[in-house]
């Protein structure tokens, strides 16, 4: 509860700070606020808590999930550099404020006990991101992305709500643990049609948010059109929060119905893996490739979700962390390079290694981690996810996932080929010291977690 209250207050404070003359204070203040929230997030450590009339629930795992979200937000905010580059039209105070508010939604999605909170959390997060997507007001691409995201998002929310209503009709409760109990004990066969339909629609709504196929069509356009820094923001935070919410729903209340949703979710997993990986191969824009890669990573996370074994939660947790770290550093490099080259294409990276060995190295580690090469966090994440599938005994799912990850190598390495093997005229890019520190921390974390994954996993 504490982080939610703190973030709300801090968000308002940041908005007021925006009135002051010195805009330079905004970035450090936001970072400080995020750090305070990150620490406050863990005050309930080792306690299972219920707040707001049993509407919010939390334990160590949900705190770690919130921690991942806050940490990713911290890194992304650190990479904004106070929005100096965005020009006159930028409203840094509002952006920071909205970012802080959106985190409230993310944390609510992670630790809901009542479906009302899930809905409110999804909406807080989504509405904030609609605004951030369209924040580049004069840019038609940004406008278009915002409108697409908004219309599609509202549409998905409608479907999700209808699902919740049907589930309520079938079980008579919005509370996760009650629903689980009712499904487990009572003879609810009468309303089973309502329950299945509701479950399906609720899943569709949430899967839309994490951009699983076939509900992924908005992702590339929105990711491509949004300002890069906000693309980084949404690809890390929405995904982590979305999967935490999905896990909570499936494990918390619907685990006993696994036979019913397994086939559906497994089909969606395979579709997501194929759609993400195969389409990513044909992209010429690095940014758009990252959008498809985020779809494919949703697929890997879905494997753990579909299998739903005792360790699925820790797999999802580790995978989201690994994915968030690598994504942040990939976008961090992209921001610098695209500023220099005014392009998001692979060609923009040509010859990066020659004058900017540091950036090339950061990019390499991040791509290797996304591709799942050993000694990076991404490899461990994939390994855990794959063992989940093996544990459940779904070998065919494992085979698809492995083929998909082999395809992944190809497009992740394309940018490395451009950076290391191609000739280019990229000049030395000046990196602000703080920016550099963030990239170093993220890269180090990626490697350290690849070597010692138990550092994080023993928390849960």
């Amino acid at each position: 509860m504490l982080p939610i209250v703190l973030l709300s207050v801090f968000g308002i404070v940041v908005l007021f700070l925006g009135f002051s003359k010195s805009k330079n204070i905004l970035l450090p203040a936001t970072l400080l606020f995020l750090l305070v929230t990150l620490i406050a997030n863990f005050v309930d450590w080792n306690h299972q808590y219920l707040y707001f009339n049993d509407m919010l629930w939390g334990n160590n795992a949900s705190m770690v999930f919130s921690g991942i979200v806050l940490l990713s937000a911290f890194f992304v905010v650190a990479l904004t550099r106070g929005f100096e580059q965005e020009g006159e039209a930028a409203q840094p105070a509002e952006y920071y404020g909205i970012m802080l508010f959106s985190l409230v939604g993310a944390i609510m999605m992670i630790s809901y006990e009542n479906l009302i909170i899930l809905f409110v959390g999804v909406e807080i997060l989504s509405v904030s991101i609609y605004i951030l997507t369209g924040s580049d007001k004069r840019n038609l691409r940004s406008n278009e992305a915002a409108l697409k995201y908004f219309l599609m998002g509202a549409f998905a929310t409608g479907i999700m709500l209808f699902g919740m209503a049907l589930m309520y009709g079938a079980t008579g409760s919005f509370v996760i643990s009650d629903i689980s109990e009712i499904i487990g004990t009572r003879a609810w066969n009468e309303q089973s049609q309502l329950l299945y339909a509701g479950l399906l629609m609720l899943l569709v709504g949430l899967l839309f948010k994490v951009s699983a196929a076939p509900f992924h069509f908005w992702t590339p356009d929105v990711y491509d059109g949004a300002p890069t820094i906000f693309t980084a923001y949404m690809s890390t935070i929405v995904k982590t929060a979305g999967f935490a919410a999905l896990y909570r729903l499936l494990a918390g209340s619907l685990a006993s119905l696994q036979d019913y949703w397994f086939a559906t979710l497994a089909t969606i997993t395979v579709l997501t893996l194929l759609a993400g990986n195969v389409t990513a191969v044909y992209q010429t824009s690095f940014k758009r490739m990252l959008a498809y890669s985020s779809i494919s990573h949703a697929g890997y996370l879905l494997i753990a979700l579909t299998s739903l074994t005792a360790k699925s939660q820790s797999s999802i947790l580790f995978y989201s962390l690994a994915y968030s770290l690598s994504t942040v550093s990939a976008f961090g490099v992209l921001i610098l390079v695209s500023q220099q080259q005014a392009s998001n294409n692979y060609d923009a990276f040509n010859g990066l290694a020659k004058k900017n060995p540091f950036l090339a190295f950061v990019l390499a580690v991040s791509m290797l981690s996304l591709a799942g090469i050993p000694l990076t966090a991404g490899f461990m994440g994939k390994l855990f996810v794959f063992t989940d599938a093996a544990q459940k005994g779904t070998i065919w799912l494992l085979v698809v996932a492995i083929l998909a990850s082999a395809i992944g190598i190809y497009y992740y390495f394309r940018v490395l080929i451009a950076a290391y093997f191609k000739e280019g005229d990229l000049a030395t890019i000046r990196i602000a010291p703080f920016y550099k520190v963030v990239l170093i921390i993220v890269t180090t974390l990626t490697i350290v977690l690849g070597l010692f994954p138990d550092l994080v996993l023993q928390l849960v």
Partner: protein
Amino acid sequence: MNLLSLLIFLPLFGAALVLFLPASQTKYFKWITLGFCAVELLAAAVVYHYFDLSNPSFQFVEQTDWITLSLGSLGAVSIDYLLGIDGISLPLVLLTGVVMLVGAVSSWQITSRQRAYFSLYLLLTASIMGCFLALDFFLFFLFFEFMLLPMYFLIGLWGGPRREYAAIKFFLYTLLGSVLILVVMIALYLSAFDPYSSLNAQTIVHTFDLRYLADGHNYLPNSLLNGLSAHQIMGLDARLFLFLVLFAGFAIKLPVVPFHTWLPDAHVEAPTPVSVVLAGVLLKIGGYGFIRIAYNIFPDAAAEYATLLGILGMVSIVYGGFNALAQSDLKKMIAYSSVSHMGFVLLGVASLTPEGLNGAVYQMVSHGVLSAMLFVVTGVLYDRTQNRQIEAYRGLAKPMPAYTTLTAICFFASLGLPGFSGFVGELFTLMGGFQSEFMPKWIATASTLGIVLAAAYFLWTLQRMFFGPLWTQKGVESLLADLTPREKIMLLPLAALTLVLGLFPHFIFDITSATITEFLKKFSLN
């Protein structure tokens, strides 16, 4: 620090040194690399010195807990930093020391981006050593897959004109192999447990320790890979199926026909020192993987499929030989001869006889030395004229007598002339093939064709390039200087080594025989 850890961390330390020295010290990078490779060889020799030849089990064992994950109701999984060496890995560790040193000398010609090159080279050394020393399957896999990265960049950055294609092809092929290995690893992890830790911890502790994985008693009852449970995958017994998957993974690395197509491309584009390392050591990891992992864990399946594997070995030998005969590029010809020679390794392993297995390990060492030499020889010519076509030269013996002598030695050694190491390796693997109870005799009989083919393509090449009046395609006679002292330093010890190994093969057999005798007891029950 234990000696084996030293073998892994010494090159890593060297890589870090190269990476962090200021750019003004660039001229010392190659000396640093050479120094570290020399110390590495020395350390390997020290291991050999203290190695107890009569002891068949693992020696110098070093174990540290690395990753321990609690899985809640599913027990726990423990991954160890576990190193050890026995009669099968020691010859290969020694070989690695020699080949990496030769490669370091051969790297003298690298002039661009030296910092990156030499740190990657040392990184590669460390991960190859790690592969041969790891006793934890997970640790082995990490080294095995991590090795691809330095190799990818070494080919992609310093390679020939089609280097990007060759590098990504190499990467994707071998990655596919390691992905297959990963599948088996996951299945093993679900099935096997560590009996001692499980007893202490009162819960099931899953393990990747190869020593436990090799024992059928350590598999959970009714788990996927328990020998007594009747799980099936795609209509095949689970153990048999996963053995084939694992086999395919290592077969790509070895390479066995039909998984070999990455090798010629990688060799043609790679710079000389990288070719030396690739053929000299990297391919051996495939053969080592067969013995240490696939056969060790799935002896029942290995015996079951001996005929199939023998046929694959035979096909590699013959197909590689015919292909080598048809090549016009010297380097491609040698690459295909590698395919053919590594086929003998597979034949020897598949035979499951003492002769076959000892011969297979011996053949790996012998081929490591010889292929290193062959690629250095090719590199010498390519450095001078930038042309590797066999038809482009005639009568090289006149301007380059020392070069011709050494080339002839390594060609004759490779084609299996008695007195050189190639002969012993082929002889023993074929003897294994003939004596094997697990496969029909005609496989070994057909494999002998490989020796005839080797004689044909090596002698034919020798005749076309070196004999007759001097002639070159583009009139580059003036560039054909004889060997420099640096090149002699590389070639002479290798030539001596192949001769010594050929005359006194017991150097290798003394190391391997005790371990292999013990190893074969697993199969005598069947």
